[in-house]
């Protein structure tokens, strides 16, 4: 199988796999077959929809991990940057609110640590390479 064909079907395949895992997790929690099927269907439809729209829509192509050109890569990087900054703020706020509320803030601390490590790792990696 060619690499291009493989990458075209990678996102739908991952989507289907995630859908199956979600359905299995729901069934494991004694949810009804209908609920599990719906959960799988939503994720699978999203993944399949992206694949079908990939050749017609540049946005769908980007969401499938295949930006059509450098401008779309730039758009993707900026959008990711905004999303990452927002997540960082939300994580800090969630950590503080939970901490002051007496709740368990460990999940937020872990997520924050992963975020910070990934960011610093990225900084070091690209600083070294560029």
């Amino acid at each position, binding site marked *: 199988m060619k690499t291009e064909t493989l990458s075209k079907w990678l996102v739908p395949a991952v989507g289907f796999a995630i859908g199956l895992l979600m359905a299995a997790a729901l069934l494991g929690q004694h949810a009804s077959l209908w609920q599990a099927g719906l959960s799988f269907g939503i994720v699978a439809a999203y993944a399949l929809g992206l694949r079908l729209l990939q050749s017609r829509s540049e946005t769908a192509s980007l969401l499938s991990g295949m930006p059509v*050109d450098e401008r779309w890569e730039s758009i993707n990087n900026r959008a990711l940057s905004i999303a990452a900054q927002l997540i960082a703020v939300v994580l800090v706020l969630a950590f503080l609110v939970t901490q002051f509320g007496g709740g368990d803030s460990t999940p937020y601390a872990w997520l924050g640590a992963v975020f910070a490590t990934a960011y610093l790792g990225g900084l070091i990696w690209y600083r070294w390479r560029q």
Partner: protein
Amino acid sequence: MQNEVRKLREDLALSQGDLAKHLSVSRQTVNAIETGRYLPSLPLALAIGRFFGRAVEEVFHEDRNAQ
């Protein structure tokens, strides 16, 4: 930055889609470059210059009004 991409393209009677095909980018990207909303990378700027048979600085130049 300003550029002469639209003028050069129209001189050759090419559509944005035609130029996009030659440069392997989307038509919207050509439009964004022509209107100055997107500044192309150096490799793409070089490809544009090469396509029109011009030096990059003939196609892309500083916005003198902005200074």
